[in-house]
C-alpha cells in the first residue's frame, strides 16, 4: 500500500501547483490593476508565490518519496538509526531565517509608499461608510471640505484619472472597509477616527467598491462603484452635481439630500 499512499500524497504538489497554473487562464485571478502603485503589490505577490511554490514542492516531494521508498512492508534495508543532525539543523534554521528576513526587508518600501507617504494635498473627497452605503462629500468651489458649499453623493465615487486622489475615510456607525480590488486599496473605516487613503488611478473605467469588514446583516450588499474618468468628464460631473444641489435646497443637510439624484 505504500506506493498507493505515496501517489495520494504526490497529488498534493501536482494538483496544488496545477490549480495555480490553470487559474490565471480561466480568469480566476487577480482583477485588472488600474492603479499606479498596484504593480508593487502584484510583483510582491508573484515573488512570494514563486518562492513559496518552490518551498512547497520540495518538502511535499520529499514526503512522497519517503512514503514510496521507506514502506516498512517492502523496505529491507535497516532503519537509519539517528537522533538528528546538528549540522542539518543549523542549515535548515539559517536558510529559512535568511529567506524570511529577506522577504521582510524586500517589501518594506512598498508598504511605506502605499500606506505611509501621504501626499501633501487637499482632500479630494470624504467617504463616510454607514450601514449599508457609502456617503460621499466633495469640496465645493472653495476647494475645502466641511464648508457650506460641499457637494453630496452616494455610492458612486467619481475620481479623475492620472491624478492623485486623497480620500478622508470615516465611519458613521460600525467598522467598514473601503476595498477597491482593481485599485489594490484596502482600509478599514473606523468610527471616531478619520483615516487618509490615497491612490492614483491610471485607466478610465468603472469598478466595484467593496465593503470588506463585516458591518451587519446587509454587509454583502454594501455596494459602491468607483468611476474613473477624464479630468473634463470629472469636472463636468462635479459641475452638474453642484447645479442639482443648489437648485434643490439652499442649505442642504447631509442626511436628507445624500440619496437624491
Amino acid at each position, binding site marked *: 500500500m505504500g506506493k498507493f499512499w505515496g501517489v495520494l500524497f504526490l497529488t498534493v504538489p501536482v494538483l496544488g501547483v496545477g490549480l495555480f497554473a490553470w487559474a490565471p487562464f480561466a480568469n480566476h*485571478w487577480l482583477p485588472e490593476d488600474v492603479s499606479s502603485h498596484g504593480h508593487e503589490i502584484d510583483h510582491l505577490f508573484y515573488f512570494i508565490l514563486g518562492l513559496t511554490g518552490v518551498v512547497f514542492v520540495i518538502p511535499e516531494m520529499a514526503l512522497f518519496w519517503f512514503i514510496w521508498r521507506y514502506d516498512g512492508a517492502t523496505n529491507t534495508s535497516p532503519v537509519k538509526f539517528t537522533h538528528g543532525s546538528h549540522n542539518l539543523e543549523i542549515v535548515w534554521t539559517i536558510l529559512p531565517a535568511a529567506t524570511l528576513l529577506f522577504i521582510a526587508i524586500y517589501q518594506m518600501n512598498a508598504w511605506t509608499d502605499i500606506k505611509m507617504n501621504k501626499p501633501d494635498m487637499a482632500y479630494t473627497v470624504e467617504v463616510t461608510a454607514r450601514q449599508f452605503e457609502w456617503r460621499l462629500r466633495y469640496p465645493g468651489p472653495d476647494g475645502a471640505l466641511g464648508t457650506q458649499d460641499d457637494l453630496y453623493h452616494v455610492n458612486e465615487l467619481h475620481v479623475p484619472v492620472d491624478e492623485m486622489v486623497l480620500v478622508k475615510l470615516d465611519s458613521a456607525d460600525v467598522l467598514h472597509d473601503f476595498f477597491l480590488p482593481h485599485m489594490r486599496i484596502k482600509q478599514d473605516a473606523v468610527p471616531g477616527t478619520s483615516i487618509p487613503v490615497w491612490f492614483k488611478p491610471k485607466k478610465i473605467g468603472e469598478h466595484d467598491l467593496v465593503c470588506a469588514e463585516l458591518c451587519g446583516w446587509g454587509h454583502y450588499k454594501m455596494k459602491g462603484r468607483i468611476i474613473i474618468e477624464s479630468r473634463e468628464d470629472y469636472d463636468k460631473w462635479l459641475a452638474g452635481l453642484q447645479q442639482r444641489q443648489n437648485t434643490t435646497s439652499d442649505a442642504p443637510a447631509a442626511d436628507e439630500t445624500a440619496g437624491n439624484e
Partner: protein
Amino acid sequence: MSTLVAGSHAHDDAHPGGHAQPGFFGTYVFSLDHKVIGIQFLFSTLLWLVVGGLLALGVRWQLAWPWTEMPIIGKMLFAGEGGQISPEFYTMLVTCTPSVMIFFVIIPILAGAFGNFLIPLMVGADDMAFPTLNMLSYWFMWPAFILMICSFFVEGGAAAAGWTGYPTLTAVKTASPGSMNGQTLWLFALIFVGISSMMGSVNYMTTIIQMRAPGMTMFRLPMTIWAMFITAVLQAFALPVLTAALFMQVLDRLIGTSFFVPEGLIVNGVSAGAGGGQPLLWQHLFWFYSHPAVYIMILPAMGMVSDILTTFARKPLFGYKPMVYSISGIAGLGFIVWGHHMFMSGMNPALGTTFMVSTMMIALPSAIKVFNWLGTLWGGKLQFTTPMLFAMSFVSMFIIGGLSGIFMAATPVDIFIHDTYFIVAHFHYVLFAGTAMGVFGGIYYWFPKMFGRMMNDSVGKVHFFLTFIFLNGTFYPMHILGVGGFPRRYADPYHWETFTHLQPMNQFMTICAISMGLSQILLFANMGYSLFFGPLAGRNPWNANSLEWMAPSPPGHGNFDAQPIVYRGPYEYNTPGRDTDFYPQWEPPKPGEQPPPDHH
C-alpha cells in the same frame, strides 16, 4: 523533582480495587478521574464538531446556491423565509461556526480531551495534581454550551458580528439583530470557556512540573507533553487579557460604559451613549489573546503528530531538542505578532512594519518542525496505519497552511488579500487540514488506550482517504477565490461584477464540503462499533515506547499497576543491538548496557 510523585498521593501503589467506590455519578458524571474527564471532553467536543460542521455547511450552501431552499432541512429550519437562509441568519452562521469550532471543539478537544487523558499517563502520574479543579474545568464548559444554544432563541437571534466580536457592531445594541441579546450570551459563553481553560492550564502545568515519574526528566517527555505544557503556559498568560476584554464589552453593553465606543455615535437612529472609547482597543486586546490562541489550537496537534510519526516510522524523532525549542520559540514569538491581524485596521502603519518582521520570523520554528518530521520519516520502516496516514497528512497540509501565511504577513500583499477567502483558506489549512487531521490521528492512535479496544483499520483508511480528498477539494480552491478578491462573510457575493464568475467554483467546493461531512459518518460509526465490538487491544498494541502504553487498556483508577520508572527518552525505536524494534521508557536496561548519550 521526580521524588515528589511518591509523596503527593496516598494511592501510589495503585490498587484499582482499593478506593472507595464512588457510585455511578461519581464514576461517570462528576468524576475526578482524569481519564473520565478527558473522555467527557472528547464526546462533548465531538458532538459540537457535528453542530459546528452543520453550521459550516449552512454557510457553504448559501455560497453555492444563494437564496435557494436547502433540501430536506430547509423547511424545518427556515419555515418563515420559505426554506432559505436569510441574510441575518447568514451572519449568525459565520459568527457561530467559528465560535463553536474554536471554543467548543478545537481548544477543548486538544487540551481538555487529549491533554486530560494523556498528561498523567504519559508523565507516569496516577492522576492530575488537582482532580477537583479538573472536574470543574469540564463542568464550567456546560454553562457555555447552554448559553450558546439559548442565544439562537433570544430576541434578535444569536451573535452575528463575527467570531472576533469587533465593536462597535457588537458594543451597540442597535447595530445588528444579533447585538440585541445574542452578543451578551456569546460574551458570557466565552467567559465560561475561558475559566474552564484557565483551570485546565493551571492543572496541566502543575502536573507536568511536579508529578513526573522517577527518571522522567523534562527532556525525556514525549513531544505531546511538551506541546501541552507550552500550550498551558500560553493559556495562562493570554487568557486574562481576553477575559478582561470580554468583561469590558459586557460593561459597554449592559451598563453603558464606552471602552470601545467613540463619541457622538448614532447607530440606526439611536445614540450609542457617552462615547470616548476606541474600537481598536478591543482588537488589540482580542488578538493579544487570540493570536497565541492560534498556537493553542495547533501546538498540541503538532506534539501528537510527532509521537504518531515516530511510532509508525519505527525511528527516533529527528532532532528532539530542536523540536522542543521551536515549540517554545513559537510560543514566545506568538505574543508579539498579534498586530498582523490589524494591518488594515487603521493602526499606525509604522507599527505594521514591526509586526510584519516578527510575523515573518515566526514562520521559522514552523519550518524547522516540518524539516524534522521529514527527517524522522527518512530511512524508516513506515507502517501505514490509519493514525500514521492522518499524521503524515498533517505534515503535508501544514506545509500549505504555513506557506500561505507568508502572503498575509507581507503587508503590501495583505492590502489586497486581507479579509478575502485567501485568509479563510489559510486558517482552514492550519486548523482543519492541520489540527483536525492531527486530532483524528490521535483518536485512532489512543482509542485502544481509552477504551481497551481497537478501531477498524480498513474503515479508518477509507475515512482518511475520503476526508483527505474532500478537504482539499473544499479548502484548496479558497486560495484561488482569495486571489480573485472574493470577500469573507458575504451572504451573496454574486451580484457584484467582480465576483460573479466565481460561483461555479464555490459550487464545486460546497459539494466537496458536503461529501467531507458525510465521510465523517465513517469515523463515528467506527468509534461506536469499536467501543463495544472492537478486538481487545492489550496494553501496547502499537509497540510504542511512551509510558501510557505500560498501563492496562483502559487504565484503572490510579493508572499504573506498578510505579513506573523511566530509563530513557520516548523515541528509542530500532536501537542497535536489541531484538525488538522498540525500547519502552519503562524497561530497565540490561546489566552492563551503556545508557544512551544525551542527544541534541
